[in-house]
């Protein structure tokens, strides 16, 4: 048992205002949040002067799988690798992974890279804890990572399909169509109509997508997000838009489509083609229009410090502070469908708490003093 005493609590619950209070944790869960809680024999952590938030959640990360000396998240032998799993490529023992929790990131969605059209499944995991990646996993599979646009067009350089966005969309739709037909045959066979199709690992992996058990998590820049919305609608799938540069041009369509926008990395120079519209200020309108918005680091493209800083930069360019903080906590939990366990400081949820030296995403001096995952202090700033 651990009792955090007298912190300024940002619970991130809807409508909650920051207030002074205690958090009692037991068995890896938050038991009680309130004022002057009795210690009941718990270890007491005096958090006077500190600010408590839920652990930050990075909704889009490759940390542990994209070490610069050898990338393990892009299997560029086949543009459809739905059956590959990021959980088989993330090294939780490397320095980069171990750095995540020191910046207040207590969970992330680790996803395959974007070299293929259908890249494989991603999973949600804590950033510290027991010994293996399996122990850290909160939800696996959590998403089906896909990619539109320039990245999968890389096949074109080798004279293969896809070499255009037309080719990309064709492969994407074809994969979903095959999976749908496979699923229909399976269901029919189960009902005694026709034969069971022979096992197809790719189609199997896409079944949870067709059943809306997991969303498509689609790397999109510019108008590729319209392609995603259209294809998701065609196949009755849920989707999240990843990166979303230039989302400001497609707000109406995004609102109508309803999927989460995981925006970032932010702060890119205005370039050309895909490389435009990475302006953090765009999330303000999306948020105002009622979309679920997350900010992401795309780590290791940005380091782990960038997650909180992105929220701070959103504030710098006009997003209300609490709304910005949601984009790296409860909004991410919701997008990843782990909001029953993560994202807010509420009794019953996982005891993933960060204690900051000042108000994060508002005061620049805020740094992590304690990171707590599953009720255990796993980092303290000395």
């Amino acid at each position, binding site marked *: 048992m651990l009792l955090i005493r007298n912190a300024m609590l940002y619970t991130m619950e809807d409508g909650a205002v920051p207030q002074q209070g205690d958090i009692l944790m037991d068995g890896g869960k938050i038991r009680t949040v309130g004022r002057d809680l009795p210690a009941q024999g718990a270890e007491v952590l005096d958090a006077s002067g500190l600010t408590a938030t839920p652990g930050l959640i990075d909704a889009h990360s490759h940390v542990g799988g994209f070490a*610069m000396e050898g990338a393990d998240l892009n299997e560029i032998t086949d543009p459809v690798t739905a059956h590959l799993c990021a959980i088989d490529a993330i090294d939780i023992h490397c*320095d*980069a992974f171990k*750095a995540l929790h020191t910046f207040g990131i207590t969970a992330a969605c680790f996803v395959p890279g974007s070299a293929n059209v259908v890249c494989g499944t991603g999973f949600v995991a804590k950033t510290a804890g027991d010994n293996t990646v399996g122990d850290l996993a909160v939800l696996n599979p959590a998403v089906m990572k896909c990619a539109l646009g320039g990245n999968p067009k890389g096949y074109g350089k080798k004279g293969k399909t896809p070499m255009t966005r037309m080719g990309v969309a064709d492969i994407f739709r074809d994969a979903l169509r095959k999976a749908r037909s496979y699923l229909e045959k399976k269901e029919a066979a189960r009902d005694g109509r026709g034969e069971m199709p022979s096992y197809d690992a790719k189609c199997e992996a896409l079944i949870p997508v067709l059943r809306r058990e997991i969303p498509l998590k689609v790397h999109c820049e510019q108008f590729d997000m319209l392609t995603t919305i259209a294809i998701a609608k065609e196949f009755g799938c849920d989707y999240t838009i990843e990166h979303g540069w230039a989302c400001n041009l497609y707000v109406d369509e995004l609102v109508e489509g309803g999927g989460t926008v995981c925006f970032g*990395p932010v*702060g*890119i*120079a*205005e*370039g*050309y*083609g895909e*490389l*435009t519209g*990475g*302006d953090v200020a765009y999330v303000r309108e999306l948020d105002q229009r009622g979309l679920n918005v997350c900010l992401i680091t795309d*780590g*290791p*493209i*940005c*380091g*782990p*410090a*960038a997650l909180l*800083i992105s929220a*701070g*930069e959103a*504030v*710098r*360019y*006009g997003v209300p*502070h609490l709304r910005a903080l949601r984009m790296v906590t409860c909004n991410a939990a919701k997008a990843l469908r782990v909001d029953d366990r993560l994202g807010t400081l509420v009794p019953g949820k996982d005891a993933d708490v960060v204690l900051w*030296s000042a108000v994060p*995403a*508002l*005061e*620049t*001096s*805020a*740094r992590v003093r304690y990171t707590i995952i599953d009720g255990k202090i796993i980092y303290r700033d000395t």
Partner: protein
Amino acid sequence: MLLIRNGRVYLGRGRYEAGWDVLCDGPVIREVGPGLQAPGAEVVDAAGRDVYPGLVLGLCAVGAMAFSEMGQWDMDETSRALVPQMDIQWAFDLRELKNQRFARAGITSYGLSPGTQALLAGQAALVHTSAERTEDAFLARRIALKGNYTAAVKRTFKAKEGPQTRMAMYQLLDEAFRSAQEYSEKEKKDYDEGKEVLCRVLRREIPLIMTANTALEAESVVKLGRRYGLRLVIAGAFGVEDFAQEIMDQGWHVMLGDGTNMMAAQENHTDLRRLLELSRKGLDLSIYSSGDEGYAYGYEQIWWNAAQMSAAGAAGWEIMDMMTIRPARALGVDALAGSLEPGKQADIILCRGCPAERFDNYIDQTIVAGRTVFRREAD
């Protein structure tokens, strides 16, 4: 004439003066002080506002990248490892500059610089972040020689004529400066533009800005600077806190790279608190926005690093100095930019408070060369 009236004016080194004015005459500052009179001047009411010099971003290639030609960017001439004669001004595209958000971020000038691939990459310029004509953008040309002493050089020249190793990188640099020295002493010589540039560096007319991302790389750069008595700026400089004494003794400058880009800070084990301590003991330290894998994809990241510095314990004004007067001095352009003083460029930002302290201390207005180029929309 433009009169910024009644602000809390920042004069550097932690000195603020409340209720002061800044009078701009065309593109330059004419006077800074209390109760200034300028009949007929356009007046900006700065009551309740902090007035800072605009940010001077030490190194950046945006404006010279040629984004549309992916893979053939215009800031990296990598046909040879040593191309000191390259001049960034010929790669500058005003339209690329005009697409950016520099002014919104309070950045009013920057060291437009050759890239991160060649060992000696070429000469940098100081440009304004807003201009109508290309000619107007340039505040100073050929202000520094930019070089790189990093793994990127090895990668770039591995399949070419080298260098493939840090041994060869050092030897090539050493020979370049040795032969330039010899060239300078010759009475009769064939004109060599590259050597002429190196001679300016040897005469300490311009600084040598070398990117070094690891302690080992920085050590070699220090050795080179010592051997030839150069004015050194060590950029990137991750891990330099381990041997900063000589850098401090020589008065060299450390332009700390972007700790939020990729895993720069983690992999290079930069200790910002120690660096800050050294800065307080006299280390000439600034921050900029490029990481260890070449130029970062932006420039607003200078604020991200400001936040990191703040989290490490730096006061807002210390960070503002690291983004204004210190980089200006490092680039040798402090007569033009970096502080609010008569005669300098009227590059000014008006803020709700110190923007390095709180994310909501908004930059309300940015003035470049006496012209308002950004105004924040009301909430």
